[in-house]
């Protein structure tokens, strides 16, 4: 089974090497692919030196574009499993083995997301108070739409199978993709699930979302969710759980 870790990084020179190293240590079965989204620092060089493959964008496309490049690569190089790991060191690579095992035991699940809020006993980084309000709103909305419990809709710590890779390689939301991606997965009738994880506060660099942008983020994503409800859905086969957009013609 071929596994790949997609690590989007924009000016993450301080942390990307640690992420790649911890991946090699904790999940040696995963190929590391860093997507340098037009960094102005030495992210590419550092990631290469750490032993990762690097896709470098000529200019900054935003997190959605960076992650999609990774899924494109995974699709074209015939990977079975792809996991997204932030380049800032928030995501603990020790969880990857659990994710793989979970997908292996539940073949009907196509995407598993690491949730900070699933396990109440777990501590670790849970974002600032103001952002948690936003997260709770998205969580309520998405849970209502997808009719499964979505506790951490903004988590970018996700592992997908081939069907998920194909879907995201062909169509991925632009600016703030995580919430919309959950909806997309549901719309294409893939099954998603969550596993509890612990996250750390970022080790270096700056978040892609500043606090002043949070309101814009909320409104933009809510608009995307609302408009998404009016999009044509792929028609399900009678009796079947339904195809990924008529088997990836999208």
């Amino acid at each position, binding site marked *: 089974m071929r596994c790949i870790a997609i690590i989007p990084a924009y000016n993450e020179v301080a942390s990307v*090497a*640690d992420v790649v*190293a*911890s991946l*090699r*240590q*904790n999940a040696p079965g995963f190929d590391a692919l860093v*997507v340098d989204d037009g960094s102005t620092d030495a992210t590419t060089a550092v990631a*290469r*030196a*750490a*032993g*990762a*493959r*690097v*896709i*470098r*964008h*000529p*200019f900054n*496309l935003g997190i959605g*574009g960076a992650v*999609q*490049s990774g899924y*494109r*690569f995974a699709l*074209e190089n015939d990977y079975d499993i792809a996991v997204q790991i932030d380049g800032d*060191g928030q995501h*603990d*690579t*020790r969880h990857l083995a659990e994710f793989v095992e979970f997908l292996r035991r539940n073949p009907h699940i196509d995407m598993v997301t690491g949730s900070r809020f699933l396990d109440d006993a777990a501590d670790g980084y849970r974002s600032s108070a103001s952002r948690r309000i936003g997260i709770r709103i998205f969580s309520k909305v998405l849970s209502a739409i997808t009719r499964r419990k979505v506790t951490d809709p903004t988590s970018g710590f996700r592992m997908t199978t081939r069907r998920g890779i194909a879907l995201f390689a062909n169509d991925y939301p*632009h600016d703030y993709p995580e919430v919309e991606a959950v909806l997309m997965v549901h719309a294409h009738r893939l099954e998603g699930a969550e596993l509890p994880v612990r996250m*750390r506060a970022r*080790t270096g660099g700056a978040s892609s979302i500043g606090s002043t942008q949070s309101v814009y983020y909320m409104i933009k994503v809510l608009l995307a969710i609302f408009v998404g409800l009016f999009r044509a859905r792929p028609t399900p086969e009678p009796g079947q759980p339904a195809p990924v957009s008529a088997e990836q013609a999208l």
Partner: protein
Amino acid sequence: MSMQLKIQLVSIVVTAGLFGVIFELLRRKRLMERYALLWLFASAVLLALAVWRGLLETIAAAIGIYYAPSALFVIAFGFILVLLLHFSLVISRLADQNKVLAQRLGLLQQRLDELEGAEAPAVAESARREDPTTVVSSR
């Protein structure tokens, strides 16, 4: 010269000038036909209404505008809205195509780098095996 005639003359000169500029840009291939069509149509309609007073007055009366030349501005404003929306559509498409191109460039560059010198990841691999202390512990 009455006010009405003055404003009609101004309207004719402005709209004719607009039409002329657009036509000239098109002739010099500075403007693609695809984007010129809407412009040409808008300026042609405005010019026709500026010249043909009777039609403008009929339209003005029909939509409840007492001063006929105002109807010209209303119609022009409508065209401007349509044109702006058209530009937003074009920009959205360009931005999407731009993204796909940048991604493809990155993927091709990666492949080229790997074909030209496969050493980069391999070197790191062997270095790691020789010296296990370089592995950074995960916090």
